[in-house]
């Protein structure tokens, strides 16, 4: 991979100079902070499981004749057991992928990088998303996100177990040499 440009250059008989940028690694959400944030997002009505659409989705799935009768009955009796609230949480109506330099931070210290919905279906980096991001709904999402983050920090400070974990986990070392 590293020689891709070099090979092309030598085949074409030209000189080449290559700049390699610091890569964005994979994001690592700290499981404990993530659980805190999720609880707060739920309290603020930001978890998708609360929406009626999720119920419709579940109904249509369990109305399917391919789902065994026992599963449909069980779903009727114990809906939370068969379809826990988080089941569809990560399923989005739009394709949404990306990378972030925050991932580098998350590799070194406990961190969370949740997403908060500003409404609409436009993917980030589109003009529609830029317009949507200036709406009343977007600013409501911003404030809800701020409250959920602040509550997470408050949990970190007041929950003795979480506090001890974070104070211990801070074995921070400088990260150097990404371009070696």
């Amino acid at each position, binding site marked *: 991979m590293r020689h891709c*440009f070099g090979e092309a250059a030598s085949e074409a008989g030209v000189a080449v100079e290559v700049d390699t940028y610091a890569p964005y690694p994979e994001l690592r959400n700290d499981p404990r902070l993530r659980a805190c944030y999720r609880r707060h997002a739920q309290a603020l009505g930001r978890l998708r499981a609360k929406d009626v659409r999720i119920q419709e989705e579940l109904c249509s799935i369990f109305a399917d004749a391919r789902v065994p009768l026992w599963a449909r009955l069980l779903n009727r009796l114990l809906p939370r057991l068969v379809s826990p609230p988080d089941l569809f949480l990560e399923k*989005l109506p739009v394709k949404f992928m990306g990378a972030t*330099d925050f991932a580098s931070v998350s590799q070194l210290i406990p961190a969370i990088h949740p997403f908060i919905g500003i409404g*609409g279906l436009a993917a980030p980096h589109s003009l529609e998303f830029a317009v949507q991001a200036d709406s009343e709904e977007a600013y409501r999402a911003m404030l809800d996100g701020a409250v959920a983050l602040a509550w997470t920090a408050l949990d*970190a400070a007041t929950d003795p177990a979480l506090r001890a974990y974070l104070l211990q986990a801070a074995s921070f070392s400088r990260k*150097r040499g990404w371009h070696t």
Partner: protein
Amino acid sequence: MKTRAQDKTTRAKEQVRGAIEAQRDRFVGLAHAIHAHPELAFAEEQAAARITEVLAAEGFAVRTGACGLPTAFVASVGHGPLHMAFCAEYDALPPSIMVDRSKAPELMEVWLTPERQDVPLRHACGHHLIAGAAVAAATGLRDLADEVGLTVSVFGTPAEELLGLPNPPPGRLAAGKITLLEAGAFEGIHAALMVHPAPTPWSFFLPTQVYLRQRAQFSRAGAAGGGLGEAWLRLLEATLRRTMRSLQQVPVHYMARPEGETAGAQADLLWIAPSLVQGLRA
């Protein structure tokens, strides 16, 4: 005993929410002002100035130009032993500069930068909301910080979009947070938090991808100004395509062709794949 502690926590939470809602207009105004003046990676001077102004007025100790980045800052309040950082971002980018990612990881369109240079700069990734949320969260905690043993910081981290820009600023090979990390700005921080806008009304966690970008400048010895002719460019593009196809990992790539017969060619590879970083380091 336990219920008393819980009551205390509930009251603290309400106090935090109250503090954020009380200054709602201020935070929304800040984010809206950043949105109205989009600035490119590493050039977010107005945005950084606006944010630090608000934080200084709220009683935060502000250090601007952190770690040699003019538009980076660190603003702190409280003296507790547990140090929480909220990361703010505030760089903008031209919309749709990224290729159609719904087709990943197949090879995507090749596009030429000169045709896209009229695309206006916008907050197409909504980073003004990240800045607003970081400022609001930190300000909401300010009055409680010492009481609960917290130090609260807002990290102003420029240039999150570096790898996706058609023309990244010259000489900047690492995004803001990576530069800050390498300079040790996150030393002593116990946790870093941020929230990113997304479509839909919901909040969720999602894995992100690994990005790696390489930029190559091709030139021909002996040609005027080291430039390449049209024939050379065609040959180079064909060779690049073939070389990349022969690799296991298929990148998203685009190629810039400056106008004129004598200009050199510049090509960019943006790789989206897991395990590339490990491969690079190995």
